[in-house]
Every structure is written in structure tokens, then in C-alpha cells.
């Protein structure tokens, strides 16, 4: 945990939702959807966060906005991690893609689109990566029936 770095980041990046907090050694920012790209660009270009670790989502079913998209970044300079969280509604679950900034984001955004149906604006290739063509729905959404199968081969009777 690098506290001077975290204090500097908190001075430099102040999202509308308030300052970041440290959770399990990771600095956590809560952002509005339109704050994502400027924040990530600043993290990468100014503060040396050169590795995009993952993007995933959380389905807070029953809450509004329903989905929380979570990005993780790592800095090989500072050996520190940052997490960005933002909420998107079920009616339009789309956020900006990070492919222009981190090429490695392409596959992880495809997986997140598979599992949660988050649309990433700017990612031109959102074909299924872990699922298959023809799969209906998004299996890690909480309202996907737990035992629903979509077999590709017809079952023997």
C-alpha cells in the first residue's frame, strides 16, 4: 500500500461523487459514466498506471441503476492498484470502451459483454468469446435462470 501515491491521486482526481477511499489496499474511485475516459487517460499518462487488469460488472438486481461496471488498473512503477466503479442503468447498459487506451481491454470487454450484457461504446468486436453464437441472455445476470441450458447438440432421447 502506497499512501503518498494515494494522497496524490486523491488530490489530482476528484470525481463528482466525492474522494476515493482505500479498500483492501486498493484505491477505489466512484465515477459518473462520462468521467471514465478522462480519469483513465490521466491515470495512464500522468500517474503511470500502465496495466489494465480487468473489467467486470456487478448485478445489483432491484437497485437503480442496476449494473456496476468495475475497472482495475495496476502501476508497475508504483506497484499499486486502482479500482474505478461506475453505475449504468438496465435500460441502457453502455459505457465507454477502453480499447483506444489499452489494447488488452478488447477481450475483457468481450467477456463482460458475454456475461452481463454491458455494451462498450467503441469496441468494434463484441462477438461472444466464452459463450457461443446463438446463446440467448447473459448468464451471470441474477435474473438468468440458474439451471437453464442452451445445448448446441440435440439431446438423445
Amino acid at each position, binding site marked *: 500500500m502506497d499512501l503518498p501515491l494515494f494522497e496524490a491521486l486523491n488530490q489530482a482526481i476528484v470525481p463528482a461523487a466525492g474522494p476515493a477511499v482505500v479498500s483492501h489496499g486498493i484505491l477505489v474511485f466512484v465515477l459518473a459514466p462520462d468521467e471514465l475516459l478522462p480519469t483513465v487517460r490521466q491515470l495512464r499518462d500522468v500517474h503511470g498506471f500502465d496495466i489494465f487488469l480487468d473489467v467486470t460488472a456487478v448485478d445489483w438486481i432491484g437497485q437503480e441503476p442496476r449494473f456496476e461496471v468495475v475497472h482495475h488498473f495496476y502501476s508497475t512503477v508504483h506497484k499499486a492498484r486502482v479500482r474505478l466503479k461506475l453505475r449504468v442503468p438496465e435500460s441502457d447498459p453502455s459505457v465507454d470502451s477502453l480499447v483506444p487506451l489499452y489494447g488488452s481491454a478488447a477481450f475483457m470487454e468481450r467477456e463482460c459483454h458475454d456475461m452481463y450484457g454491458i455494451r462498450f461504446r467503441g469496441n468494434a468486436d463484441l462477438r461472444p468469446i466464452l459463450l457461443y453464437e446463438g446463446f440467448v441472455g447473459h448468464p451471470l445476470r441474477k435474473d438468468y435462470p440458474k439451471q437453464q*441450458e442452451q445445448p448446441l*447438440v440435440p*439431446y438423445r432421447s
Partner: protein
Amino acid sequence: MYARTVPIVPASHQKDGAFEYLTTRKDELIGWARKFSIFPYPFVTACCAMEFMAVSASPYDTDRFGAALPRFSPRQADLLMVVGTVTHKQAPILLKVYEQMCEPKWVMAFGVCATSGGFYQNYAALPGIDKVIPVDIYIPGCPPRPEMVIDGIMQLQEKIAGSRHLIVNDRF
């Protein structure tokens, strides 16, 4: 425990250096030859592969049952060993591999995932490969002990030896 199907030497036979002979039935002879000539094709997808390696290696040694040499083309194999979890995405590949094998062919479901899906019951896993292809022998366990695999191979051998062999006909 297992039926004796080896060729039988008559009890009155004296080993005196003269012409030695044995009597058997044609179908028993063919069955005896076939059951020690299993050519497995390992369709290995998951962690059961470790146990497959253990049972193939010298301490347990499936070569004693004539089932040692894995064929790496299904067209040369007659035993399809499905070792590990098969997903819905994998099922068309499994079916294609099975359909490429020549008759006669047998299928072994190795481990509980191939048998029934095991503890997977979700959007991804196929609940048992017998939903897609016919299975001759099921080996439960997560993973199965090598002894269970050998027991399964021996039961399959009995099934092979006791089955009807199409090459035994009136012209044979």
C-alpha cells in the same frame, strides 16, 4: 468375479513334445483377442487428466489390459475415453470425434463430470456425455482412483469379449 473367457486347454492334455493343441470356440477366441486390443483415444478436457496419466503410467499400467497406447486420431481408435467436464460449447466437437471413429467402438465416461455433469448444474456444463453420445462404461469419482479405472477397463473387456462379433459368421 469375472467370467473366464480365455481358451481352455483340455485337462487330459499331456505336454510330451508331440503336437500341442487347444480347443476353443471361434467367438470366444475373437473376443479374447479383441478385449486385449483396445486402442483408446483420450478426449481429455479437465483435471481428471491427472488421474488418467496416473493410471497410464507404470505403477498402475493400463498396458496390462492392452489399453495403453493412446491413438491421437479418433479414426484409429476404438475406445473413446472422455476424461473431464464437457461443456455445451465442447459438445459438437465431442460428437464429431465420436462420429469419426470406426465400428466397433466403445465409450468410457471417466469421472463424475463426464458421467452426469458432477457438481456443475448451470448454463455452461453438459449434464453427462450420454446426453450426446452412447456410453458403455461409467466410472464415478472426482477424480476416480486408478483402481476404479482399471475395474472399469476390466468390465469393459468382459463386455467386449461377451459381445457378438460380426466377423464370426458362416464363412469364417
